């Protein structure tokens, strides 16, 4: 029997165990173990994407209990893509961390691996309570990681982060209670069968459960008015942690995608398309406010943190269209925005370190020691994140705007996305000008090593790949969107024979 689908959770879990048991091992050995594990994850993820690309589903019944009574892991194109994306962001973040950050606190590598486990589990599970469990794993691991490096700023931001998100978790449990109470199951495929058959008297409870879940996922995804914890938390976290967190908001986006195409799709008459109707305006306003935050930010880490929120706003506004084209475009853009934001978080620290006391504050400072290298990387990153051609930000933006053709949301989407784009130009132009051009005095810092720059280059190369190979990649996201819009095969794969026979 094929156990590949368990590996994205089990590899990091067991790696963390080994790292804890081997706490007295040489630092170099620990680092090697951690990096090797993450490399293995990339390999496994590619294998899973390869498998999912064929269009087959894999349903893996843990404990050999038939769905919906046990827990299933489900592989489809979307989950495979998310797992791959996690690994692709994880490796550069880790490579950056082994350059020194991992010694600035305890248990970094174990926490990092547990974080990867939580992320992968959330993407692969087919059970909504199990999703909650993985939310907890990644929340608590991320809390440990935010604090990594210490200092008052991190402790304060971390406290806000964990209290707010735990409150969100509490509501998650309430929502699960409602859903289980109303439908008697936690398996998402099973829910997908039971929800449309709800009794008319269940209208209110059905809607309440669906909307409360939306609130919970919006906390994770950082939608207005629930994102306020994010700028400070991401802005204070150490660079590799912030880079890894680029994928964290996407867990919320993923959950919305999954649950509102499978469990509460627009086709459920009693829902009356409420989730989409609510999501679209809120996401657009989030995007607008986030771009205002980008322009108003006075340090570059905050610029990037608000760009994270803006990308979520963009994504969810498009996702709220719930058409195959829209989802395909959103998935492509999601990959792009995750990679580029991770790159920028790492790059920001390289720049800030070389600027000296001004750090990342957007005021004139001494020049960086490596203006050509960092300037070029910054330029490429800024072009990508601002959605300028020829990189994937631009392609994704067109892809998304096109997907709204023929919908009545088109004028709103065009206006906000393009207006936000203009604000992006203003902000990135200003930031680049201050960081690299408007300098005073001589540099007092030493250049960063190639090993420290490599992770940024890797991430930008991935963005380049995403742009250059836009044809096959967008074909994949399109196929993934097709699966999402046609959930029957998913449901059948989970419930009918339940994966391969043992």
């Amino acid at each position, binding site marked *: 029997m094929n156990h590949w689908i368990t590996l994205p959770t089990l590899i990091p879990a067991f790696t963390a165990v080994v790292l804890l048991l081997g706490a007295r091992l040489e630092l170099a050995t620990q680092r090697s173990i951690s990096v090797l594990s993450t490399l293995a994850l990339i390999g496994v993820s590619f294998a899973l994407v390869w498998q999912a690309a064929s269009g087959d589903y894999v349903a893996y019944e843990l404990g050999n209990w038939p769905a919906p009574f046990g827990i299933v892991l489900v592989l489809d194109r979307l989950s495979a893509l998310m797992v791959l994306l996690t690994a692709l962001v994880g490796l550069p973040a880790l490579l950056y961390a082994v350059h020194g950050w991992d010694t600035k606190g305890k248990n970094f590598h174990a926490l990092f691996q547990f974080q990867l486990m939580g992320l992968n589990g959330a993407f692969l599970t087919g059970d909504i309570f199990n999703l909650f469990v993985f939310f907890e794993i990644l929340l608590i691991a991320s809390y440990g990681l935010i604090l990594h490096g210490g200092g008052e700023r991190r402790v304060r931001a971390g406290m806000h982060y964990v209290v707010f998100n735990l409150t969100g978790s509490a509501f998650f449990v309430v929502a699960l209670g409602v859903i289980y109470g109303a439908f008697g199951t936690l398996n998402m495929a099973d829910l997908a069968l039971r929800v449309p058959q709800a009794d008319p008297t269940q209208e209110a409870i059905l809607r309440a459960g669906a909307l409360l879940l939306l609130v919970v996922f919006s906390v994770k995804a950082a939608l207005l008015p629930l994102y306020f914890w994010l700028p400070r938390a991401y802005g204070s976290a150490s660079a590799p942690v912030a880079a890894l967190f680029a994928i964290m908001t996407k867990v919320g986006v993923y959950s919305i995608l999954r649950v509102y195409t499978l469990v509460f799709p627009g086709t459920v008459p009693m829902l009356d398309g409420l989730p989409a109707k609510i999501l679209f305006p809120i996401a657009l306003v989030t995007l607008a406010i986030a771009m205002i935050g980008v322009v108003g930010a006075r340090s570059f880490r905050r610029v990037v943190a608000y760009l994270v929120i803006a990308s979520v706003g963009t994504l969810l506004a498009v996702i709220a269209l719930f058409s195959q084209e829209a989802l395909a475009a959103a998935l492509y853009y999601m990959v792009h925005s995750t990679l580029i934001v991770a790159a920028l978080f790492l790059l920001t620290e390289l720049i800030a370190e070389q600027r000296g006391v001004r750090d990342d504050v957007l005021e004139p400072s001494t020049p960086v020691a490596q203006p050509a290298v960092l300037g070029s990387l910054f330029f490429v990153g800024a072009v990508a994140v601002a959605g300028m051609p020829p990189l994937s930000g631009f392609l994704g933006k067109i892809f998304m705007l*096109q997907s709204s053709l023929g919908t009545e949301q088109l004028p709103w989407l065009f206006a906000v996305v393009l207006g936000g784009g203009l604000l992006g130009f203003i902000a990135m132009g200003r930031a680049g000008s201050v960081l690299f*051009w408007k300098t005073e005095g001589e540099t007092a810092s030493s250049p960063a090593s190639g090993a420290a720059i490599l992770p940024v280059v890797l991430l930008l190369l991935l963005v380049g790949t995403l742009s250059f190979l836009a044809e096959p990649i967008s074909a994949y996201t399109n196929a993934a969107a097709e699966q999402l819009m046609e959930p029957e095969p998913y449901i059948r794969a989970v419930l009918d024979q339940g994966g391969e026979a043992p």
Partner: protein
Amino acid sequence: MTLLLIVLLPLVGALLPAWFIRWGRNQSALAAGVVTGTAFALLLSLSSSVFAGEVPRADWTWMSSIGLSLAFMADGLGYLFAFLILGIGLLVVLYARYYLSEKDPMGRFYAYLLLFMGAMLGVVLADNLIVLLVFWELTSLTSFLLIGYWKHLPEGRQGARMALVVTGGGGLAMLAGFILLGNIAGTYQLSEILQMGEVIQAHDLYAPMLVLVLIGAFTKSAQFPFHFWLPHAMAAPTPVSAYLHSATMVKAGVFLLARLFPALSGTELWFFLVTGAGAATLLFAAYVALTKHDLKGLLAYSTVSHLGMITVLFGIGTAAAAVVGIFHIMNHAAFKASLFMNAGIVDHETGTRDIRRLSGLWAAMPITGVLAIIAAAAMAGVPLFNGFLSKEMFFEQAWALEYQFVEGVPWLLPAIVTLAALFSVAYSIRLVWSVFFGPQAEDLPKPPHDPPFGMLLPVGILAALCIVVGIVPVLVAGPMLAVAATATIGIAPPEYSLTLWHGFNIPLLMTALAFVGGIVAYWKRWAIIGLHEGPLPFPEAKRIFDGTIDRLAAFSHGTTAALENGSLQRYLALLVGAAVVAMGWPFLTGSWSAGPGPGTPLDGMSLVVWAILVGAAVATAALHRRRILALVVVSVVGLMLALAFVHLSAPDLALTQLSVEVVTVVLLLLALHLLPKEGPSEDSIGRKARDVGLAVAAGCAVTAMAWVILTNPVDTISGFHLAESYPGGGGTNVVNVILVDFRGFDTFGEIIVLAIAGLGIYAMIDALGVPDRWKIGSPDDEVRYPLLLTVITRLLLPLALLVSMYLFLRGHNQPGGGFIAGLVTAVALILQYVASGIGWTTDRFVRDYHGAIALGVLAAGATGLGAWLFGYPFLTGWFDYFELPIIGEFELASAVLFDIGVYLTVVAGVLLMLVNMGKIRNASAAAPDAADGEG
């Protein structure tokens, strides 16, 4: 293939000069020149087919889902522009070699320049709207880099940002317009779109699409009211100004008008928008140009004005006017690039560009002077120079206008045109006469002389072209104009005559008026300048722009700070509020009803318990400032809940609740120990009201949901669990079988959560950097432990461990299990810490909680993996019954191994948290010398 190469060569070749600079400036310039020259040669190799009317094409699918393919075509229009871009590019490369000083990083300059060249070639050769847009925005980006090339100059940085925002922003509008256009036409293929003019113009979306596309074109070509960025772009090195901001990039806007001419032109809307913007720009910029004292400033506004003229021509919408527009694009490129380079020479050799300081340069720089006169004459439209021809034809078109701006005022446009031409003559005179003639200037920063040959050659070539085209237009420019015009209008162009003499007619009269008036205007220029600087001040675009940006930044900062104000309480209120809306609104709007489910009879005992629970919850909120007390009260809630579980026949939950409660309270006590005993009083009445309201609303919503659920029983999957627990899971305690078997994966996850929490708290406390002397268990520790407590807890320990063992072992069949047993063990050990101190306890028990946690997770995980050996999925359970003498029948189950893992993790995780929290003393107790120490 050749086409792809032409575009890609400069883009890829941009690396060469940056690399070759290590061997010297000449090598770098040569590399740039070779790259440009090769691309030019490739272009020329296409000449025969282009002039034969063929359209060479290249295509590579990039992203079909958005209709994007790298499709290029070299029709006449694209060929003409590519010719200009590469031809002038070659001259600029040569010129820049001598223009840039030793200090300037030349490799970077040529790299940017080649990138720009490639981008521009992409724009003009594109056969796909999206590709056109890709390269369009790339020209904005490279222009940004080139304007800001001298990064130490604030004007350069600001000019670069302004240009980026205006042209990049225009690109965004154009993006929207193109998507609409592509949607209307059903394709992004330009050559197809150009065939569909009628369909497009009849479409409902034509008007918004046109406006959006035109915003893109106008921003790029600096048309009113987007013109203001161009003069500020002059902070760039002069070769850049000559190349980007006069000859090529700013022409991209008018190129677009030409490119889309067959598809979009000819409607009334097109006329009013395009000709209107063009005419306003033409006149206004010509007037401002006369008043500029900076050579490049004058040329910048003159460029804006000439672009306005070309825009007017395309706006007229007739084929004949479009032909003239194309012709003037060619002519303007030649004379304006030449003039910019000339201005650069003057600046380079004299050290200033201020017309008021320059005078009488003729004596020192005769060659430069001659070249300036030729190009300026072309710009003014003097006969025998190329500018004359296109300007005459322009007058003719303006006169023969089909539409009228204002009904009944047919002379309006001709009047504007003539007036603009008048200013054009005046500033051309000023450019030459004030600089090269008159008394010799005395106080120039540098003694002037003619520049090196390498700088003169490009200027000379362009000036020569002005004359040759002016005299024998048909021979030199005729063929190129013919193919370009054909490609632009899509059909064979109407009759036009490229001759010097058209007889006595209205255009000639307009020319005469312009010349006479122009000379007068030059003569009276100081009056005009005085008017401009005094009573007729034009709004300073830069100040408005900067002010807008500053206000935008301030507004953004303020808005953000107001929203993200750092108050966790507010964020939580928003979260709870959102949840309340999500839960409550459906009940207010949708249908719901209590179901038929039977009610549970209410007995007195329950009533009391529930009342205590509610009372304790309310009291906690009321007493929250007195933290220890609040903790005691809130623990009552937990106890009552445990009772409720007992009452509702859930002994496992009750046990878990109890032990979790104990551990939590200890943990919180440890934490509170480090904090002030009283919370600050920060609650205003308004906030209290808000919080009470939220709490009540949330309570009501949850109650409503609970009510509906409890009264509407549904068929749940737990039926399966109940039925399968013993036969399938080997245990009669369903809760435990669910935990270790049915949903073992959840449990595996949850013990990891506990493990991470332990690790995280350990790391956090470590990161807080608490000094060792603040930690209990340090050598100078003199805490005394109460003897009685110590003795009792030590006696209790084996008992407690026995209980936990008992709970663990019976767990599969009776209330208990690894989780509960772990908590009980943890509590027993904590008691030792409390009663005997950390030092004593640590010495006698496990020291390495990290290792224990890891072993726990490993045990659980390895048990799960074991199933793989037998070909079953992760966590598949196994059990069987065995018979042993004396003991009798007993069960062996993999679930026990799993549960051991749970047990270990729980014990170690909990202790890791508590011990590390407990190690820290209250700061005031640890540092009695602190000012606020209470002892």
